[in-house]
């Protein structure tokens, strides 16, 4: 074979592999949507789940997922922001900084099940929080922190150094420069990072099974008192999320229509995550355009 023939053959082979990957994705999405959509109905989305009979919905699971997402972001965003500011603006080039970076890398490489088990050990058992939304949100925070820190730090890093100099040359404190100049410029990137991490939180299950628990008590959506045990806002109640629900109905095998419930739930999950992804992109682009004055 001449080199040119090899070249053509190799290119064909690469294209073939790429094609397979694309087909896999199309198959996955197609399978989820096609087998899931028929099961999605108003009834499915708005009725409570039933364990031992067919026809259950996912109302509470869906709400739990969203509530948990919000709580997790409320806890993890300030922590991640502060840490990212430290790393990008205050950290010197020394052993301490590299220790911190190593710690964050270790945190990000931990399997989510290990993070979940740690949350179970410390919060559910030691701190007696029990299986609760709060324990779940804390576990998800651990799991979410490294990613969020990395994306915020990246966005801050992308702000040109000349902006920092402009700020401090005017006699502004570093803190004021960060808050008033750097953060607004980094905002599109930060928002994109938050939304993408929201997608991950939304689909995570392993860290939740032993923290937020696997049961969904009947919720009272008219009770706005967060301390009442039946209130939908109570952060101390156990809460099965959509992703955990899919896992549970499949592994316990007591729900007769487990497959259709999982299919419908998977489709809902995927659609929401797709929305997150597109939203992240759209918001990022739009804010970027607005900031640069349309240029």
């Amino acid at each position, binding site marked *: 074979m001449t080199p040119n023939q090899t070249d053509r053959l190799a290119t064909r082979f690469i294209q073939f592999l790429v094609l397979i990957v694309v087909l896999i994705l199309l198959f996955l999405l197609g399978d989820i949507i096609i087998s899931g959509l028929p099961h999605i109905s108003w009834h499915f989305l708005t009725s409570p789940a039933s364990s031992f009979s067919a026809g259950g919905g996912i109302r509470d699971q869906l709400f739990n997922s969203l509530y948990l997402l919000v709580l997790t972001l409320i806890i993890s965003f300030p922590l991640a922001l502060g840490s990212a500011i430290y790393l990008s603006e205050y950290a010197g080039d020394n052993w301490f900084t590299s220790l911190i970076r190593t710690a964050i890398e270790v945190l990000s490489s931990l399997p989510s099940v290990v993070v979940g088990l740690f949350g179970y050990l410390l919060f559910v058992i030691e701190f007696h929080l029990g299986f609760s939304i709060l324990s779940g949100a804390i576990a998800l925070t651990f799991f979410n922190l490294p990613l969020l820190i990395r994306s915020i730090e990246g966005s801050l890093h992308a702000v*040109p150094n*000349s*902006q920092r*100099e*402009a*700020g*401090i*040359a*005017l*006699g*502004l*404190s570093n803190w*004021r420069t960060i808050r*008033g*100049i750097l953060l*607004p*410029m980094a905002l599109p990137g930060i928002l994109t990072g938050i939304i993408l991490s929201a997608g991950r939180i939304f689909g995570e299950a392993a860290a939740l099974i032993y923290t937020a628990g696997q049961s969904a008590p009947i919720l009272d959506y008219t009770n706005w008192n967060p301390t009442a045990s039946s209130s939908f806002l109570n952060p101390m109640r156990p809460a099965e999320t959509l992703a955990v629900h899919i896992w549970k109905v499949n592994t316990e095998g007591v729900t007769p229509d487990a497959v259709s419930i999982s299919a419908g739930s998977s489709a809902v999950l995927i659609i929401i995550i797709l929305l997150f992804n597109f939203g992240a992109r759209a918001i990022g682009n739009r804010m970027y355009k607005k*900031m*640069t*004055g349309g*240029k």
Partner: protein
Amino acid sequence: MQVYDLNKNHIVTPPGEIALSTNQLQVNYGNSKQASMVDASLSFPRFQITALIGASGSGKSTYLRSLNRMNDRIATVHGEIMYHNTNINSPKVNVYEVRKHIGMVFQKPNPFAKSITENITFALKAAGITNRQELRQRVETSLKEAALWDEVKDDLNKSALALSGGQQQRLCIARSIAMKPDILLLDEPASALDPISTAKLEVTLKELAKNYTIIIVTHNMQQASRVSSYTAFFHLGHVIEYDQTETIFQTPNIQATHDYVTGNFG
């Protein structure tokens, strides 16, 4: 490259009031043992323009950035910087106040991604000025002083990033002088500008020198000779010669200076 005796120098002390002076300033970047700037002792006359010239890597920008402590995070600066009878290079000194009184304009225009007005008022508000009347007044005065008012007075709420390079640089000057500094440091402010904008900027600088002490780093020798009354020539981290601009360009005392200003360098 010809080797000059770096320890041979000729440095004068200008007569009259001195706004700022340095005594044996030495700058080391990072952990480097090699100093980027040694032994610089210069006095800057009040309400005059002083130019710092020299080839790239001569240490002139390093020196300038040390004057308002912009190098704090990246370099160690030894020696004294005297301003109002205070050594402002001391760690005890309030560095934010130093920078309020000694403003700086950079090589590349760096307006904030905010409106023209906000570019100027942002630091004023941070400094505690909240009176709307006064803020508006300061915006107008500083833009007038920077010779930008007539061009932008109708769209003060437009993004500063929509301005041309020359306008952006004058906005940066306006932003600095709105803080009512004493001294203005300019680090090659015209290097990113076209000739017309540069000429405008030079006129503005001369006008500003009536109220401010200006120290300007420049690559461009014609510019130094046009705008400044004193000039310092830097070479390989040493101040070789400091005298009236006329002397530097016409009858320099040191061979290296002569070679540099006549273009017979390197």
